[in-house]
């Protein structure tokens, strides 16, 4: 009955359309153009032929796909018991688990890389796979739990009453119902793992290379720009393919089954369910190991416990390995992340408003879907590619942007904006159109309805998105490593530089800086958890 067919009324349509130009314009200049420039460079030179013909390329591609697939499998297997715990169990400490599993996801990649290096000093494929999986358990667990907690338990009960064992009921009723959520989460995780940069760079070194690190190495070390562009082109093609698949899976999930309020579906585990719950707790404990190891390393010195690493942060490291002090880098980090967050909020909110308004008017459903997917592109196109693209294109803009410190927050905003959209959009979409109509009937103009109804209702999500975006920007490594100049380096860049230089003090400084980043991240995650609007939003 609730049909808002307002497409013929001019004021309703033009407002969002004008607003939509802001994020689209930004996306065009700071994302599409750099990426297009790379595609052009990749296609236009002999690089593509040379790169495609080289067996080395294919071994890199194979390794990229292989490690991403393995990491995804590990993440999904580890996440399923946790999803069960979050969705189906009424046990004390669930809130802590929810927050705890989110910590790895937002940890800066350098921090995770370093944590696994301290656990597995020999590195190797296993450490890369485990580190990538470590990151993404939360994505799978929370996405799957989101659907699972709303799944009607009575379907399972009916299967049990018909003679199915608990396991059989799970495999024949629950698992098929969860498949869309598992599928879309796995697609996203695969993407994250395939484009993972910091972890692979730190743990794989020159031996294990993915497309992402190969692009970086060719640009920075070998100065083979056309080869790097060709590799970026391969990566973009693959990413778009995966994103389209994920969008299809998501659409199926949205036209999902009979969903229930969460409280109805949780209870204390029974019988064999205790084993699953115990496994989930074990997974959570395992997730904490690298974090604890990192903190322990940060306070260990060659002669017992000590805070040498933390003290050294006020300086420039062993024999002046850095151009700025650790504290200056921390200030740079906070400043860039704040700017990036504000920009991403502006872009993300206006994009969400446009998507919701166009969706409500039901004018161009295909266009809305396309726009929705396009705005997700920066999530998948590697940050390294974006950073690289900036180097190629931004000379053409007025002002000396390429050498400007503003470049870092701009690139970070591109990375953060899709996350903001994914957190705000579902909340705005869940506002009942009749609530807005009620406000209208009371005399509120369309803009006033946004101000008085939609924005306040999405308020908590806005704060959560801001906090979340802030920590992601704080830990951003891929694009920043291209764009930050030595004197404007952020903390993750400084960490990366420190561990590539000799000297015990440098190592300790890196661990101390990681711990500081982690503390800020955890504090923000706990804040987000408190603010979270239950079970809306995708991350």
């Amino acid at each position, binding site marked *: 009955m609730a049909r808002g*067919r307002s497409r013929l009324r001019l*004021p309703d349509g033009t407002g969002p359309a004008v607003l939509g130009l802001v994020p689209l314009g930004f996306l065009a200049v700071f994302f599409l153009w750099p990426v297009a420039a790379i595609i052009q460079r990749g296609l236009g030179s002999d690089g593509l032929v040379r790169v495609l013909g080289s067996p080395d390329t294919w071994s890199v591609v194979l390794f990229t796909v292989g490690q991403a697939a393995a990491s995804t499998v590990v993440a999904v297997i580890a996440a399923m018991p946790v999803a069960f715990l979050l969705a189906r169990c009424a046990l004390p400490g669930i809130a802590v688990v929810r927050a705890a599993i989110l910590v790895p996801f937002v940890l800066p990649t350098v921090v995770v890389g370093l944590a696994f290096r301290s656990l597995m000093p020999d590195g190797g494929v296993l450490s890369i796979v485990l580190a990538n999986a470590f990151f993404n358990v939360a994505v799978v667990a929370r996405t799957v739990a989101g659907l699972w907690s709303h799944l009607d338990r009575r379907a399972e009960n009916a299967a049990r009453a018909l003679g199915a064992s608990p396991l059989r009921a799970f495999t024949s009723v629950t698992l098929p119902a969860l498949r869309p959520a598992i599928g879309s989460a796995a697609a996203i995780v695969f993407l994250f793992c395939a484009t993972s940069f910091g972890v692979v760079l730190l743990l794989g070194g020159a031996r294990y290379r993915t497309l992402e690190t190969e692009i970086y190495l060719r640009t920075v070390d070998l100065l083979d720009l056309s080869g790097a562009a060709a590799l970026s082109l391969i990566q973009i093609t693959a990413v778009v393919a995966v994103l389209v698949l994920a969008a299809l899976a998501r659409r199926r999930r949205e036209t999902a089954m009979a969903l229930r309020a969460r409280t109805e579906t949780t209870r204390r585990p029974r019988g064999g369910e205790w084993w699953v719950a115990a496994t989930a707790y074990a997974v959570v404990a395992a997730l904490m190991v690298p974090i604890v190891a990192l903190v322990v390393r940060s306070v260990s010195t060659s002669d017992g416990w000590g805070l040498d690493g933390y003290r050294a942060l006020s300086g420039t490291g062993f024999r002046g390995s850095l151009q700025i002090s650790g504290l200056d880098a921390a200030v740079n980090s906070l400043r860039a992340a704040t700017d990036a967050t504000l920009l991403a909020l502006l872009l993300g909110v206006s994009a969400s408003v446009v998507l919701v308004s166009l969706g409500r008017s039901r004018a161009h459903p295909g266009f809305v879907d396309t726009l929705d997917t396009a705005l997700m592109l920066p999530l998948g196109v590697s940050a390294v590619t974006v950073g690289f693209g900036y180097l190629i294109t931004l000379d053409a803009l007025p002002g000396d942007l390429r050498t400007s410190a503003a470049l870092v927050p701009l690139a970070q905003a591109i990375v953060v904006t899709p996350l903001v959209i994914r957190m705000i959009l579902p909340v705005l979409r869940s506002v*009942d159109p009749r609530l807005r*109509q009620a406000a*209208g*009937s*009371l005399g509120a103009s369309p803009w006033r309805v946004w101000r008085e109804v939609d924005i306040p209702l999405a*308020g908590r999500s806005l704060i959560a998105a801001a906090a979340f975006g802030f920590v992601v920007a704080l830990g951003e490594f891929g694009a920043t490593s291209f764009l930050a100049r030595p004197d404007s380096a952020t903390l993750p860049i400084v960490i990366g530089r420190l561990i590539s230089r000799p000297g015990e003090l440098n190592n300790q400084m890196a661990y101390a800086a990681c711990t500081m980043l982690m503390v800020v991240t955890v504090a923000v995650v706990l804040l987000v958890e408190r603010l979270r609007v239950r079970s809306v939003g995708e991350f």
Partner: protein
Amino acid sequence: MLKVDGLDVAYGRILAVSEVDLEIADGEVVALLGPSGCGKSTLLRAIAGLERPTTGTISWNGTDLAGIPIHRRGFGLVFQDGQLFPHRDVAGNVSFGLRMPATQQPPPTLGGGPVASLSAEGAGNEGRRGGLWITGRGGESLGIAARVDEMLELVGLSGYGGRRVTELSGGEQQRVALARALAPHPRLLLLDEPLSALDRALREQLAIDLARLLRESGSTALVVTHDHDEAFTLADRVAVMRAGRIVQVGKPDEVWRRPVDEATARFLGCDLFLDAHADNGVLNCEFGSAPVPWAPDGPVTAGLRPAALRVGDGPTEVTVTARVHRRDHVRLVVDTGGRRVDAVAGIADAPEVGARVRLVLAPDGVAVLSRRG
């Protein structure tokens, strides 16, 4: 006065509302009654400004409302499930419309209903031209607070201003929704199935309260409902709607006693149609005769509701084949010799299944239709 003239509303190729004419006089309550899917909600939404008519006009005191958006129409809207703003308390909900610029209207004149004097320039200017009854910022909030208290008292929720709307029961939420809609003195109140989400006992109580409230506030209102009890409790006039068209408009007892056709009679509870003959207000049919003053003389069709046939001392003898206990009577299915019809009996003397009983025609359950064909 609201006037709907030749209105069509289409969704794509489907005509949801077709050739509707309807007038609502100032201070009048009209119920739009019909089965679900008949287009009655669409008609209400078109009047509210939420749907765009394909053809036809909606006007208020002679001014065409086409092009005037919902927030400038000054019409109050109440949904089935309240749709209270969850982020505001009860007072914040009720005061919402009072804080909006376009609906600041002068208070109702003594004895009159909501001010209904829209000039040709449109609704937006009305409040300003009506004179500033609210002056200054302090005075404004004072006026708003007083109006909120007044409204909460009207709906029987005095002192609820500071409560969270999520703590309220369904009935209380509907009362707040009503107070919120009435607070800015709407020219017309539109109620979309206002009681349907409530359970039965509460629904009946609230229907009586709502009827009183609409009378006391002198509101002009359009109520959409599928429940004829509700429509007849609330409305001065009932418009029966079917398949997008209004098929009958009249006072509740007229519609109840003289439905325009068989389909309308069926919707109003008649399930047995008999040839009958009326003479000087006495109806004769195969189940006997009864005084039915609303029957015109001559051959007619009698539409019988179950209550039209009672166990008693009539001419027809039947066999009871089923019985169901209802709240205040026992519903029977009886065999009249090859045909099964519904009848009622008192709870105290209800016959058993298989018993032979006699039926008497009771005028209460009889509707009279013009003779078929």
